[in-house]
């Protein structure tokens, strides 16, 4: 396991997102009020920087580029989004928000997972 401190609980206001460098990996930390979550920093659609394009409201994250939306607790997509959010495990250690960044999570923008789609 590679638990590392991303930030302090006071670094991210409720219903906002902030990007932190966690041992060289960019991680987006969200404060849902009763829970912290951590995601890769780019939108799974067109790699828009979610720290700037993302809006949190009512437990939903919306990217203002194309209004892709996700449930912030589960990462599940809501229409019109076509891909879920990836998430890092998060735990609190006192006032520290700890994120498990064993591997950097990245989206498959090039569809390489799909043999059918590759030439």
């Amino acid at each position: 396991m590679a638990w590392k401190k991303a930030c302090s609980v006071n670094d991210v206001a409720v219903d906002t997102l902030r990007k932190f460098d966690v041992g060289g990996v960019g991680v987006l930390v969200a404060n849902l009020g009763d829970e912290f979550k951590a995601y890769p920093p780019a939108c799974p659609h067109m790699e828009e920087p979610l720290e700037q394009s993302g809006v949190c409201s009512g437990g939903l994250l919306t990217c203002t580029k194309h209004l892709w939306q996700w449930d912030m607790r589960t990462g599940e997509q809501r229409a019109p989004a076509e891909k879920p959010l990836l998430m890092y495990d998060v735990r609190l250690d006192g006032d520290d928000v700890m994120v498990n960044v064993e591997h950097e999570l990245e989206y498959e923008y090039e569809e390489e997972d799909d043999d059918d789609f590759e030439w």
Partner: protein
Amino acid sequence: MKITVRTKHQNYTVACNEGERILYAALRSGAPLPYECATGTCGTCKARARPGDVRSHWQSAPGSSYLKPERGEFLMCQSTAHADCEILVPGKPAAEVAGGLLPEYLKGALCDLRMLTHDVAAFDVKLDGTMAFRAGQFVAVRTAGLEGYRAYSMVNHDERTDRLSFVVKRLPGGGFSNWLFDGSPQNQPLEVFGPLGRATYDPSEGKDILCIAGGSGIAGIMSILAHSTRAGHFEQHRGRVFFGVRGMRDVFFHEELSDFVTRAGGNLEVTIALSDEEVPASAQSDYPRLGFATGMVHLVTSERMSDQYGDAVAFVAGPPPMVDGTLRVLIVEGRLPASSIRYDKFG
């Protein structure tokens, strides 16, 4: 030539003319491929081709910042093919091409060019044929001698018309802008491709409408007001319009907006937001049917709307920072679902 478009969900075979933009060929043949601006700005229509199969006509298009050229990615709206080829389009095709109407090429001539403010002009295009479009849609416009298409939203609305009206803001150094403002464009031939865009108004939705525009973004909103007024929308539902400009000298369409307010019989409010100056004392007496406020248009919207969003459908049009700021307000404060928010960002 023939282009085979492969998506994860479906394949399309598209007949494409020599020199024709691949996106336009696909859309007019009914392939509902992803796109937004259709003119190189947003990057939404990116696709992949084998090396050498397609040629980009605008390498430095703003939307190319979304591309990985080493993977053969290109913008369909800016590229042509010269032989049969196959392309891959990521993402899901839309439910329909553009408001259910297939776009086509039409020729026409520019007429009735007139200045609305010191740097905004209006013009009409008299088409050789007719076009049906939904309120809120746009066309891509091209003139002889200028490379590439520009996107302009229609100001007017009729179910089918041979005349399209537009507004344009003067952009120093802009090719089309120079041609329009400094040349002799009257009666010059134009080609339009459209209708385009999915940010459309549909009276049968039967909901209140909230329209927020920055500068010439008011164009599509005027079309929506024309259609909604004609459809009797304001007999049953409310409408609110927030129109952002810098100062009083930048306001246009006051008479048309005042007229819509009158015809809506109390169910339409129009507020002009002045970002760079205080509201002069004369504004209210000069334009008694319009409201005025000082501030950025998304902040004025936030303040005036407060908790009155209900289940309105929102239309947003303007420069990208203005649209993004407004989308935040609609999502966070208005709690509007994505399906009730329609926007046009133009750079």
